[in-house]
């Protein structure tokens, strides 16, 4: 797939945000804050970073993208539709009975989802197992994993951090969506994670901190991770939950609910008119 320029990536991300709002409105339930916050990372991945073929989703040499925090699936679905994995009309089927777009991703329903996820804290371990197995066979593709900061409360996640560190899985890159919210409140109130960087480093990981809305930083960080041969890399992406919609930004109340019609209209209006401004922030 052709790689988009930084400027086009910003525009693409804005279009993806609009479709997220529309699909959540159609579904009538689902998560708003996380998907909007990660729209830039997903856009960068699917339109610049990943080595993949949407027309041949299960292409053997594709880079693997594991989504550990399955609840932000809407952003993945919308980005995949934009990339050409399936028709955009499917986006209206989010959360519907027998739909390929389940509320939380199911591997067997949609090609290239890589795994079934939703219950938190298990994605990095699966990605680590995958990276370990592919390294046994000298495969050259990379394994990416997207984790939320909230799921860093889970023991299973830290077991995986230990495992990947022990085995020096340099073909594994993990994004941490550091948006500082989870369902019950701010992460530092629910269960403090800081110093997060020091924790990963203590577990023998290479760690990068970036602005998760800056395309250049996202792409640079992945290129940096490719060059680290002795360790897995964690890219801590500082993101604004609900990014692009003023009344959702940084509000943990928007973690697990969709907009109603009024709210969706306001959100779409903001995304349309602020399109230029969002781009401006990164210039």
């Amino acid at each position, binding site marked *: 797939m052709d790689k988009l320029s930084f400027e086009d990536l910003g525009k693409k991300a804005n279009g993806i945000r609009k479709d997220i709002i529309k699909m959540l409105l159609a579904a009538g339930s689902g998560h708003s804050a996380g998907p909007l916050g990660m729209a830039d990372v997903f856009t960068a991945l699917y339109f610049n970073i990943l080595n993949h073929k949407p027309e041949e989703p299960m292409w053997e040499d594709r880079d693997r993208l594991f989504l550990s925090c399955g609840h932000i699936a809407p952003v993945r679905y919308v980005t995949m539709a934009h990339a050409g994995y399936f028709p955009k009309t499917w986006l209206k089927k989010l959360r519907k009975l027998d739909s390929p777009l389940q509320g939380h991703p*199911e*591997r*067997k329903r949609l090609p290239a989802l*890589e*795994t*079934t*996820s*939703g*219950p938190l804290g*298990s994605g990095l*371990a*699966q*990605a*680590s*197992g*995958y*990276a*370990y*197995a*592919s390294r*046994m066979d000298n495969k050259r593709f990379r394994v990416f994993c997207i984790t939320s900061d909230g799921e860093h409360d889970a*023991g*299973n996640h830290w*077991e*995986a951090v*230990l*495992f990947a560190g022990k085995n020096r899985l340099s073909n594994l890159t993990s994004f941490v969506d550091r948006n500082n919210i989870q369902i019950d409140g701010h992460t530092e109130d629910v269960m403090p994670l800081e110093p997060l960087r020091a924790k990963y480093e203590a577990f023998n990981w290479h760690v990068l901190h970036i602005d998760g809305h800056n395309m250049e930083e996202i792409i640079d960080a992945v290129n940096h991770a490719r060059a680290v041969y002795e360790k897995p890399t964690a890219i801590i992406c500082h993101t604004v939950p609900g990014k692009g919609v003023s009344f959702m930004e940084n509000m943990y109340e928007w973690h697990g609910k969709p907009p109603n019609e009024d709210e969706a209209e306001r959100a779409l209006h903001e995304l349309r008119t602020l399109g230029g401004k969002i781009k401006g922030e990164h210039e």
Partner: protein
Amino acid sequence: MLRLWLEAFRYLKRLNYCLQIINSLNLTMLNKSLNLNKNIFDKKVEALPTRDGYGKGLVEAGQKDERVVALCADLTESTRTEWFKEKFPERFVQIGVAEQLLATVASGMANYGKIPFIASYAAFSPGRNWEQIRTTIALNDVPVKIAGCHAGISVGPDGATHQPLEDLATMRAMPNMIVVYPCDAEEARKATIEAAFNGKPTYLRFAREKTPVVTTKDTPFKIGQAEVFWEDRDPQVAIIATGPLLYEALVAAKKLSASRINSLVINCHTIKPIDEQAVTKAAKLTGAVVTVEEHQITGGLGGEYCGCCEEGDKKKKHLTCDKVKYVCFE
């Protein structure tokens, strides 16, 4: 005097000979077509723990296919994963005391295309990683093989914490999961090899203690297919057994036979999918069923059997459960 002694000796010899004939008559009730161990009622019958069969089967499966990998959570020696590790060190993955990691790393490896066997004590795996198995192995439908060793109360001195009696229930309830509980080390070996190539998530249950080896290399084995190991003429009761307690069921059948109670013993090594035809046929033939397992009735073989009882057999079903309780907690 000497002559008297000789007489007595000859008499005893003859008596012994007669006893042997009676014994062999009893043996004929064992299903001959299955090539079972002919010495199973001898006191010196060969005994091995079923986990030994797992260890052997795992090595054989590894020899057959390079995709086979083994993971262990710090119990490599006692789960017999050690034997695989010695043979194929590059295909062994040490996970540490982290059963949730054991399941999830294996899920990733299976998703990639490996055939992972994960071993720990059943109290810990699938005891501690139920949700990880559900989401990442069962719902994902990837072929991870879960070996639950040291299962049941026969673990003995380790105490209740180490005596899982719930694992069959939790694994039976999983979507896509095959559940196998071999009766002896030889069957465990065969089950392990067959599980490697069935393409499905599979739970294999093993025991710590040595138990008599009932089957031989030539005994047929197929996951999902129960076999009649003992059949008296016109049986009045069917004993459906799973796991190493099958041997005790055979001993019981022999004793019942001596008391003129004719029975039929089924080796029901596959709990899920249960061989519905075989067990319902046995129930119809005899009108009375006892299920035998080293597990709670709820969710175990007893539960699975009740699930395939016909509506009209409700009364029979309850009778069965009561008897199961008796057998289980005697």
